[in-house]
């Protein structure tokens, strides 16, 4: 078995499962929030902040931002390991891939931390 030091779980099956579980959570979340927005029609601040500020949604939002982080990392890891390789782009492939993965990892962490501040900081 070939293991990669940059994959999330250092194990393809674990990454596969993380990708699926986070996908299902994100799908449900997206449908609930879009459904709420469509049902509201004209959204007011009171309704929106009441919806997003209730404990259930604060917990759902926290799950969502963590799922976004995990899902994005596994997905972009897959994309970078497929296209940013020595075979695809030449001898600098490994260096380019590792730099791209570093930037993606840092951005993902920033997204998660920023999201948590938005979700919990305003209350």
């Amino acid at each position: 078995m070939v293991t990669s030091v940059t994959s999330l779980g250092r194990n393809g099956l674990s990454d596969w499962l993380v990708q699926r579980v986070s996908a299902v959570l994100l799908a449900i979340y997206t449908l609930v929030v879009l459904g709420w927005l469509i049902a509201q029609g004209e959204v007011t601040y009171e309704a929106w902040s009441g919806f997003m500020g209730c404990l259930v949604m604060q917990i759902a939002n926290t799950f969502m931002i963590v799922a976004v982080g995990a899902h994005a990392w596994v997905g972009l890891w897959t994309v970078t390991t497929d296209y940013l390789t020595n075979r695809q782009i030449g001898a600098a492939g490994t260096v380019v891939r590792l730099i791209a993965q570093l930037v993606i990892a840092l951005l993902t962490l920033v997204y998660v931390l920023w999201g948590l501040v938005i979700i919990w900081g305003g209350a």
Partner: protein
Amino acid sequence: MMANVNDKRPVNLDLTTIKFPVPALASITHRVAGVALFVAIPILLWLLDRSLASPESFAQTKELLTAPLAKLVVWAILAAVLYHLVAGIKHLIMDWGIGETLEGGRRGAILSFAIAAVLIILAGVWVW
């Protein structure tokens, strides 16, 4: 084990010389939409932050979202979300062992494009 990985076997992975069948187009579009969504996350987080900060910033954000360019950006993000969602559900169905044949793969890909196109048009109607 490592010896196998380093074997000099003939490989053609020059993507520019490969003709893409429909399932491959469905797959690469799923990836492009995923990368686009990663780039769009700051926009969504910023909108969430501004919409919740205060009644004033909520009103400003709502005003901003009435601009044609803002509507186009929102629609583009929704399009990426909807395609990625539909193609993702196709993935989960195929994980279950359904539609894994050559013909099933083609049908699933065409169906994903069709369903996503309808949803994206509906999203456009909703945004405008």
